[in-house]
């Protein structure tokens, strides 16, 4: 009689194990996310409804939607948002195309293939600060290498920080330098998951290498392309360290006329130079919503593009 009872208990435990333990396994993530993700997010939301002076030991007063009302009428916010979108487009679109191309190259049988594959990741693991400082020197007005090269082909020196287009271009190059290899590796990983017999069959049918790439590789990569587009959107709209350091003067206004101040940098300026914690939080939340919106739009667009190609 003891045996069935034992079995029943064991079965119960078993059931509990299969049903319960997965939650236990994922629990650490949710605890960490709760502490470092969700709580700050909600708290920032609360702060954004206050007039909150960071400097005065956090003295604050509930003001409802006043910060948001001010924000939509603030030309410097819209300027920053425009700069962010421009830098984002300039860096992301070429970045993903080049990454796709690099991944395609790395997918061939090459000598020292592993080193090359590791090599494309190097810019990404280099400190963002170091990369930006080096690039800012390359883009220097008086003694920069880029201007020197332009001079060799007879083009005048460019004051990269001074103009909107030149500063956006320079910052986009810094961003693209860091993330192209990262995206290339992601593309490469999923390229390797494409069944080889598809290519063999295509070859038998006389498809060229380019045809194979566009007709087999790209459609098979669809989920990955969507993923990288969404991730790049999230990252690209939050650019802050590059424009801050590119200015060279350690002021968070993004150039003399705010010509390369991004939205994240504007948030930093409001929070940590103006000490308007509430207003900065309103910027943070608005930026969060804008990013979510763009990620969704991006998802829909990339899905359609990939569908068309199928």
């Amino acid at each position, binding site marked *: 009689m003891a045996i069935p009872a034992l079995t029943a208990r064991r079965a119960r435990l078993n059931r509990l194990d299969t049903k319960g333990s997965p939650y236990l396994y994922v629990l650490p993530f949710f605890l960490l996310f709760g502490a*470092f*993700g969700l709580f*700050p*997010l909600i708290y*920032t939301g609360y702060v954004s409804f206050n007039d909150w002076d*960071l*400097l*005065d*030991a*956090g003295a604050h007063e509930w003001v409802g939607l006043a910060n948001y009302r001010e924000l939509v009428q603030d030309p410097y916010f819209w300027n920053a948002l425009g700069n962010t979108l421009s830098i984002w487009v300039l860096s992301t679109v070429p970045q993903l195309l080049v990454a796709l191309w690099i991944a395609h190259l790395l997918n061939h049988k090459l000598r020292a293939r592993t080193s090359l594959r590791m090599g494309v990741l190097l810019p990404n693991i280099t*400190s*963002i*600060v170091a990369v*930006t*400082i080096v690039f*800012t*020197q390359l883009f*220097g*007005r*008086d*003694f920069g290498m880029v201007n020197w090269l332009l001079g060799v082909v007879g083009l005048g020196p460019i*004051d990269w920080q*001074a*103009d909107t287009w030149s500063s956006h271009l320079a910052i986009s190059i810094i961003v693209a330098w860091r993330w192209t290899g990262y995206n290339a590796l992601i593309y490469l990983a999923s390229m390797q998951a494409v069944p080889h017999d598809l290519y063999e069959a295509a070859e038998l049918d006389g498809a060229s290498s380019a045809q194979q790439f566009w007709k087999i590789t790209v459609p098979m990569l669809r989920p990955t392309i969507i993923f990288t587009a969404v991730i790049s959107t*999230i*990252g690209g709209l*939050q650019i*802050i*360290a590059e424009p*801050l*350091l590119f200015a*060279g*003067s*350690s*002021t968070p*206004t993004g150039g*003399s*006329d705010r010509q390369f101040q991004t939205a*994240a940098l504007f*948030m*930093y300026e409001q929070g*940590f*130079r*103006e*000490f308007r914690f509430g207003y900065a939080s309103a910027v*943070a939340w608005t*930026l*969060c919503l804008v*990013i979510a919106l763009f990620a969704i739009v991006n998802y829909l667009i990339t899905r359609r593009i990939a569908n068309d190609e199928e």
Partner: protein
Amino acid sequence: MLLSRSVRALTAAAAAAVMLTACGSGGDEGGAGDGGNVTLNVNLFGNFGYEELYKEYEKANPNVKIKQSTAAYNDHHRNLATHLATNSGAGDIEAVDTGFIAQMRDVGKQFTDLGTERQSEYLPWKWQASLTKDGQQIGYGTDVGGLAICYRRDLFQKAGLPTERDKVSASWAGGWDKYIEQGQKYTAKAPAGTAFFDGAGALYNAVIGQAPVGFYSEDNTVVVGSNPEVRKAWDLVVRAVQSDLSAKLLESSPEWNNGFAKGQFATIACPAWMMAKIKDQSKNAAGKWDVAAVPGGGGNWGGSYLTVPKQGKHVQEAKKLAAWLTAPEQQAKVFTSKGLLPSIPALYEKPEIAEYKDPFFNDAPVGKIFTTAAKELKPQYQGPRTGDIQTTIRDGLVRIEQGKQSSDESWQQTVSDVERLAK
């Protein structure tokens, strides 16, 4: 994700600030010590010339280790304000510049009261500027700026200008208009790749530093838009820029540092602390620099304080060190080693200061030049956002240097930006 990412970016930015400008800190880690040992963190910007003094202090106080961190001017003050706001992360001793002392004074309860014992030692206005409304002293004065013009003899010679310092001083004794005239003469025959002065923002700070009233009236109202002196200084600097005299470099940027090494400019507005920067950045030009009187005479730009934030772990030890670093003997040493002008007037009469000649500056009698400047100095009232207003005006002038805006357009934008700042 949004937050964690921006936090990471901010950390990176802060690290950047430290990396960008860390000029040889003390080096030795506090580490695990014997019982009773304390490590004091001293956070500075620029060069205070304290490295040698730390060693001396550590020798006399074997239980104390001193760790210095240096950041860029704006970063340093932003970091300090943030650390005060979050009530953690500030050093045991924090330097504060004249441009920010009023802002810190307004949150005086965050700082240790340093008492009144040393009041009689100091220049009265220096003492007053770091005193809160209810009479709490938040900072010991380190140095005052004073004003002179540092110039490159070799470049002047190549451009056919007189190089001897009395003649140079005389050539613009009539005021800044004469300085611009000399600049035009310089530019006409200037060696290729050089300009007359470093950048519009720095020149502006010197010019406005001579006005009796600057950005604030004494009741803490911002008067940038209404004070004619502010606009007068603006017009003058714009004229200098439009005469093509500016090397268009941002003060304290990496490019500006580089400009010293490459000899991109022949003159620079020179408060005493600027001499320390020149020595750091143009080591290859020792003896080529010289110091002349400032056009118009008098004036002040900068000068600093050492404060002891209340949140520090070793407030008493920190107070002791701050008092020692700013004591007359140490201020005298820092003057002869780095050129920082003491804020203790009794020192101006001492021969080792008043008669000091600096070999780096072609044996210029910097002691005489700067003690005279300090005695003639008429202090200007500084309000809470002075430092940020300076930056805003600089950006306005940079827009003109970059050819983005006309003087009037830029002025209007600057005034509205300043109003926004001061709101």
